[in-house]
């Protein structure tokens, strides 16, 4: 059901938000738009929040991370949702924006190998994955894959590379992992929401990627945690910074998130990739924060409402009935009051919020 809402809602509301967003000016009126990945979570959040905070109206729309970032910066919408953090380029272009992490997601590698029984544990590392996506490894029984999986007998069948065609945060996180682990990928393609794919075929949306991988023998593709759970897909274990092969799950993504939140070198606005940076046995190396982009030049009264909403989202909103149910891993902010305090009272301007009292 969730996935029906994801796509149908995205299509239906894409046009509406532009209208809804432009006219908004009233005090307790918040418009959120952007990432299609975050959209289902924002929907349940806004419903729950409007119920417990009468007088506040939140409109949510799925328009793509790019739209979210640019329109949050120019004031068309209150909050821009994005799967990608603000890179140096974006920061330069939109200096007024700050990023607030609101949930964890990840990108996992799915496959359809003829003759391989379901539930076979496959392992892969960044350089091998990058070579597959660059068209250098063309068959499933390539020696690099056999070396990583000595117990598995691969068929001699062509690898059919599948990727996203639309600009997508999932792609950003996926290519981030490839860029961090493969020098060649970093030099030739880099990380982007819509990179110049050397090989493969592209599909519009994660649902289409799942469908294409499932229907194409020999296919390899990538989607987020929500789709893995929804369709009970097998995903590959990825090699992390400490050399462990970890499969993506709520637990391993949270392990990555915890490592990031506890890491004192990690910036307070979390405006940094957490891919391939974190140590730990259980850390999934291709997890990411989902962000809300807020412009620091919002009017004072709006900022007050936004802060209240962010505080609620980062505490009560992290309950698994909202996050895990819609395919995300919760942020462990409740035990991390100093981090939360910094976000609400230092990064965002305006009156301070007392994080001890409920939202």
């Amino acid at each position, binding site marked *: 059901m969730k996935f029906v809402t994801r796509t149908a809602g995205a299509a239906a509301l*894409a046009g509406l938000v532009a209208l809804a967003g432009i006219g908004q000016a009233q005090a307790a009126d918040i418009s959120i738009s952007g990432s299609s990945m975050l959209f289902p979570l924002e929907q349940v959040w806004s419903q729950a929040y409007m119920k417990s905070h009468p007088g506040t109206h939140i409109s949510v729309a799925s*328009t*793509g*991370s*790019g*739209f979210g*970032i*640019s329109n949050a910066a120019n004031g068309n919408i209150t909050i821009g949702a994005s799967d990608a953090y603000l890179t140096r380029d*974006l920061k330069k*272009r939109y200096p007024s924006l700050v990023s607030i992490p609101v949930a964890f997601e990840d990108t996992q590698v799915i496959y359809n190998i003829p003759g391989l029984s379901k539930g076979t544990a496959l392992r892969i590392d960044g350089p091998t994955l990058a070579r597959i996506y660059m068209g250098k490894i063309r068959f499933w029984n390539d020696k690099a894959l056999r070396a990583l999986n000595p117990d598995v007998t691969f068929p001699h069948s*062509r690898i*059919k590379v599948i990727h996203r*065609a*639309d*600009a997508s945060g999932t792609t950003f996180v996926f290519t981030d992992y490839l860029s961090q682990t493969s020098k060649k990928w970093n030099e030739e*393609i*880099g*990380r*982007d*929401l*819509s*990179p*110049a*794919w*050397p*090989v*493969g*075929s*592209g*599909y*519009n949306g994660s649902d*289409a990627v799942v*469908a*294409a991988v499932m*229907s*194409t023998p*020999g296919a390899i593709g990538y989607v987020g945690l929500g789709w893995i759970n929804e369709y009970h897909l097998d995903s590959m274990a990825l090699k992390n910074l400490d050399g462990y092969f970890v499969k993506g799950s709520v637990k391993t993504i949270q392990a990555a998130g915890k490592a990031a939140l506890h890491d004192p070198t990690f910036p307070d606005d979390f405006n940094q990739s957490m891919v391939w940076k974190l140590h730990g046995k259980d850390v999934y190396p291709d997890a990411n924060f989902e962000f809300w982009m807020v412009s620091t030049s919002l009017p004072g009264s709006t900022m007050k409402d936004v802060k209240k909403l962010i505080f609620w989202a980062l505490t009560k909103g992290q309950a698994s009935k909202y996050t895990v149910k819609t395919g995300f891993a919760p942020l462990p902010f409740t035990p991390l009051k100093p981090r939360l305090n910094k976000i609400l009272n230092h990064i965002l301007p305006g009156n301070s919020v007392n994080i001890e009292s409920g939202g």
Partner: protein
Amino acid sequence: MAVPEHDQGDTLLSHGDHRPPAVAPLSFLVPDMSDAAESPASSPSGLPSESALKSLRRTTHTQILRSERIFQLALRLGGVFILLLFATVLGVSVVEAWPSIEKFGWSFLWNPTWNPHRHIFGAWTYLVGTFWVTGIALLFAIPIAILSALFLSDYAPKWLVGGVSTLMEMLAGIPSIVFGAFGIIFVVPLMRDHVEPALANTLGRHFDFFSGDAMGYGILSAGLVVGIMVIPLVATVTRDSLIMVPRETVEAAYALGSTKAEMVYFVKLPAVMPGIIGSVILGFGRALGETMAVLLLIGNQASVPTSIQDVGYTISSLLANTFTYAVIDPLFSAAEIELGLILLVISLVVNTLGRELLLKLMGGRLAGSVGGG
């Protein structure tokens, strides 16, 4: 009788028996005319007096002239609006595309690299993909469309013609996303499991152009589905022009001893050539701009296809996929708008050339009445 000085409204009133016409031209624009018409009719002699007639003529003349002017003005506004609309679309596109036009110049057209990450943009792969899909679609659609049009105009039994024609017209009105979905559930598996392996095992043994990994998605599937969408367009216009071939011409062919097939092939087909060309141009425009069905089927990969089984990318599907993201970077969005501009120019050029060709082939007669590019 005085020579009419003005326009039709004037002549109508100056001729005949000096009575206002029963229905004045544009009477709906002149509500108070009935009042003016009644007063002379009520004169005792039954004939209107000269002065009453004069004043009547003057008032109705000025009223009709005024309404005529208003009507003309409205029409002119409509025409000007079209011009303005076109100029606005073109102007805004050029202004928005300017950063890209300025930076890449003509090389934008043949540069095969499209890399937003490195700010290098070139249209080549998308142009090639667009022409592949359009080409496959037309190659597939034109023969089928002409055959079905000939069947409907000359061979089909009467009871079948109405039904099939209606179905064909309905096909032309189905939204493209429906064809796209049909492509995914029917054409893609058919290509992947049967057609593409068969092609690779026969023609593919001798020509690399037909071999490849059977994937289903790609230029072949996209081209065929767009072709299906073009068939009704070409077929209906061709059928309409076949029906319009004069009976005398057909009978002359029979009188000279042609068989039915000879008549169709040597007389009817050459006679409707302009109509066919016009409909093909229409179909070309449709195939060129088709977005949703292509996006679902082509595999959206920016590489130049070397085999009919390869995936590709068209201009319109690239815009649909990435334009919302491109707005984040001025050069990126400029490059995408420039792509849109290229599409616009191509269809303009094709339509103009098509029109010229039509005029030439028809030797000036009937120009624009059949097909009309």
